[in-house]
């Protein structure tokens, strides 16, 4: 086994399969969790019928989606229409390659991991646009316009916010970032406390990128039917839905790794801590989703361009000055 693992191809394939299987499983049951959670918040039971506590619901959903009739509108651009759901899952899942769960348990220890995850989450707007435009549906088109505007706008504060951890730890590799936090304290409370503000902005931006409430303007079901997925049926719709959950889960995992010290923690093994932190952040996201109302388009844009972008631009020099000062003292 260990000799086999020395072969880079086999190692990459092994960890790739492990990660993807893990992420897919967690994604499936996160939909169950979200529905149960939403039910409880609204004094309902949530899913109860399929299996104990409705735990087999995701499997039932998958079986249902798989055998639905596959309708493509006559006026749609067939090739792009079919390509979009595949790519959206590909991009959402691809981010998982660089998420470090433990020092050894990560698919690809890229030394530019931050750039990889930013690039892939930036690409997420393409399949959304591709699918919506190709459906040749007016609701989809409006939704796509909103999704792209929102996606690229929030890309800016997201990238600027993650620059704060990069400055503080001096590395672009996510596993090195966690290692640095293990040594010098988590970024969320490390001086000059810019990590905390950067985390809030990064978290908001990743909510916006995943089109989750309170930023679900592209999907606004009360005005746009089902947003970009209006014309999609069966598993192709399911893939868009899955991509949203994968994106949300991985955002929580990335926040846990970058700001909350990843696998760092006492007593229990590192993997437990990493998973615990990710799950707590995911629960928080779900909580936000079922507590808040949707913002308006102009409020969303104002929040991004007039508050989040200047705020992150102010954070960077503060962090930089402190880093230079601390380095001058011989500390950090």
């Amino acid at each position: 086994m260990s000799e086999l693992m020395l072969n880079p191809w086999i190692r990459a394939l092994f960890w790739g399969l492990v990660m993807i299987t893990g992420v897919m499983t967690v994604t499936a049951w996160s939909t169950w969790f979200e529905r149960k959670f939403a039910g409880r918040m609204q004094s309902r039971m949530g899913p109860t019928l399929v299996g104990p506590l409705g735990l087999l619901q995701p499997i039932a959903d998958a079986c249902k989606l798989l055998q639905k009739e596959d309708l493509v509108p006559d006026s749609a651009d067939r090739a792009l229409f079919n390509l979009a759901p595949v790519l959206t899952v590909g991009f959402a899942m691809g981010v998982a390659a660089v998420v470090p769960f433990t020092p050894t348990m990560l698919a690809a220890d890229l030394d530019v991991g931050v750039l990889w995850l930013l690039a892939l989450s930036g690409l997420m707007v393409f399949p959304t646009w591709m699918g919506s435009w190709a459906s040749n549906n007016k609701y989809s088109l409006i939704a796509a316009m909103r999704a792209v505007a929102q996606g690229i706008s929030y890309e800016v504060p997201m990238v600027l916010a993650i620059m704060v951890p990069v400055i503080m730890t001096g590395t672009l590799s996510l596993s090195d970032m966690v290692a640095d936090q293990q040594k010098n304290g988590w970024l969320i409370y490390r001086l000059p406390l810019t990590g905390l503000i950067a985390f809030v902005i990064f978290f908001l931006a990743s909510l916006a990128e995943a089109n989750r409430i309170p930023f679900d303007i592209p999907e606004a079901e009360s005005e746009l039917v089902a947003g970009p997925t209006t014309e999609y049926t069966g598993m192709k719709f399911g893939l868009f839905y899955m991509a949203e959950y994968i994106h949300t889960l991985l955002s929580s995992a990335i926040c846990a790794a970058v700001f909350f010290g990843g696998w760092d923690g006492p007593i229990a093994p590192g993997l437990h801590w990493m998973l615990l932190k990710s799950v707590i952040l995911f629960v928080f996201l779900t909580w936000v989703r079922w507590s808040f109302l949707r913002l308006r388009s102009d409020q969303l844009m104002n929040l991004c361009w007039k508050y989040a972008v200047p705020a992150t631009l102010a954070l960077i020099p503060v962090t930089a000055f402190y880093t230079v000062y601390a380095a001058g003292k011989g500390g950090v």
Partner: protein
Amino acid sequence: MSDAWLAALLFFALSVFVGASMVFISWVLRVKARENPPTRTLTYECGETPVGNAWVRFHPRYYLVALVFVVFDVEVAFLFPWAVDVAGAGLAGIAQVFVFVGILLLGWVYALKKGALRWQ
């Protein structure tokens, strides 16, 4: 190409494969309606027959946002090499970044004053 890049690209290929295989499985397992009236494959427009095409011209405010985005994203791409070694670049490095970001901030203020970021 290093092992990490090999792993990352392989991972990405696997992720796309997962999506593609699910579309393929659903294509194998799907049901098909016996009759196919022409209205079934029309696009949805509240139950009415769709009027015209959806590939139309659109409000320019979205393109303005995209323009401002390009400016900032390029800026960020230039900032990352500095961000990795801030302590090494020292105060001189910060000063240079200030000039660089300052010029861009002027552009941002201009866009703001011109109303490019106002959602009309």
